[in-house]
């Protein structure tokens, strides 16, 4: 159904826009974004990719299986301490074997895993120049290059390489204002289709992890009682929820998500406690900027894969509703 809707929007764009000669390539590029999202959910694939940010380079293996309407996915980090992320639709489980920990999280309320919503896709062109560039070869695949240049300093630029045949993303790069790479994902080896079974998306720790500590949390849509008065242009609230941890009482953690269709910024609000780190200000971690502020007896943490100014602006305008 969703894909039908997405395709319909793509088609509507293609029909509505050809009057302006320069819009056609843009509509075409937007259709590619839709294809990428669809392929990520529907294709079966297995491969190895490299993640780079700053000086660090890390290699991971990924397997994705769509089977009978259920999505199974497994990410295995190959460098440093072993880590495994398993996903079955909205259920995420992460294994940390060296510290014998399982982190499990179930989303409730919205059925679909995050997707680029049709209105977000059309919204993208308000804040990014979107164009199709050349075809380049990545990991043996001919890939269509898509370039998204931000129209202001509130978001980063993106470059996507999508497999010509399937639309699957084979490389993605996020760029700063001088086109410097902020982070990059590249498949070095990839097989699309082929034989992938349920065993390939199972944890290798399934049987050995019975005694490990398990942290369970879930998130439910909820009215938070907080408002963000000065949301940067193009960003819209996509989710407002309350997160809770099994075995931990209390009001839980408020989580509000804003997105411009490509970048996302999360606002976390938590009552302060004696044990909490209460340092305020801006920090950076990998591709993320993080701004922490104390508002009354709450700690507000805003983070996103955006320039500092975006998270800062949101953080500065978080206010309790009266």
């Amino acid at each position, binding site marked *: 159904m969703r894909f039908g809707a997405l395709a319909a929007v793509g088609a509507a764009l293609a029909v509505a826009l050809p009057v302006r000669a320069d819009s056609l390539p843009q509509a075409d590029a937007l259709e590619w974004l839709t294809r990428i999202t669809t392929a990520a959910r529907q294709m079966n694939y297995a491969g190895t990719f490299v993640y780079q940010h700053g000086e660090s380079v890390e290699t991971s293996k990924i397997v994705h299986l769509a089977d009978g309407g259920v999505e199974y996915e497994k990410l295995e980090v190959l460098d440093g301490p072993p880590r495994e992320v398993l996903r079955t639709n909205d259920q995420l489980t992460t294994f940390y074997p060296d510290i014998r920990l399982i982190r499990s999280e179930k989303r409730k309320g919205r059925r679909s895993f995050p997707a680029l919503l049709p209105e977000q896709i059309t919204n993208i062109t308000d804040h990014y120049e979107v164009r199709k560039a050349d075809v380049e070869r990545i990991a043996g695949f001919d890939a269509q290059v898509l370039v998204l240049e931000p129209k202001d300093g509130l978001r980063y630029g993106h470059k996507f390489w999508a497999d010509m045949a399937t639309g699957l993303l084979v490389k993605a790069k996020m760029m700063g204002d001088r086109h410097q790479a902020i982070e990059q994902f590249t498949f070095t080896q990839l097989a699309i289709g082929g034989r992938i079974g349920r065993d390939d998306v199972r944890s290798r720790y399934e049987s050995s992890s019975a005694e490990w500590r398990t942290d369970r949390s879930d998130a439910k849509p909820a009215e938070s009682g907080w408002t963000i008065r000065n949301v940067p242009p193009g960003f819209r609230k996509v989710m407002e929820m309350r997160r809770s941890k099994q075995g931990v009482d209390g009001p839980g953690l408020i989580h509000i998500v804003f997105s411009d269709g490509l970048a996302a910024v999360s606002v976390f609000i938590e009552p302060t406690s004696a044990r909490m780190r209460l340092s*305020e200000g801006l920090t950076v971690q990998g591709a993320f900027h993080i701004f922490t502020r104390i508002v009354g007896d709450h700690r507000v943490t805003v983070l996103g*894969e955006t320039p500092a100014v975006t998270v800062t602006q949101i953080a500065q305008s978080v206010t309790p509703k009266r």
Partner: protein
Amino acid sequence: MERISALMDGELDDQEAAHTCSRLKNEAELADGWATYHLIGDVLRGERLCDPALLDRIRPALEAEPTVLAPRRVSPLQRPRSIALSAAASAAGVAVVAWLAFFDHPGGTADAPIAPARVAGAVSDAGAVPNLARADSTVNEYLFAHQQYAPSTAMQGVAPFMRTVSLREDDMR
């Protein structure tokens, strides 16, 4: 080392503090870290004595282990690595203070909308935003939660979780 720092910051509860103190007594590396962190803090504050307020917070936790208050001298040859890391963390702290000072005087109320251009300028002028010298476990939890709702996850599946799961053991505590 995270524990040492938390102890210094008064963030450990009694039991954890006692445990860390007993480890301090037995593990040379931790003791070195303890001394080094203090040394850096003192130097940055322009004083060689410990901050009395800090001492007041630490003292109750250390009552059971009085010997720790006289840490061994740190050999200069032993500590270049932790100095470098901690110095970065401390410098980051200074930068954060400078940053907050900037926001405290935007010429309006504390929560007045800020001017994006000025902020962007401030960031590039400062050269770099403080990097989280060590990942705070809360921040990591936040990053992980955030990742689930980020459009990059829609386009790349779980691959972007790579950003948040490759944590070291220390980061998870």
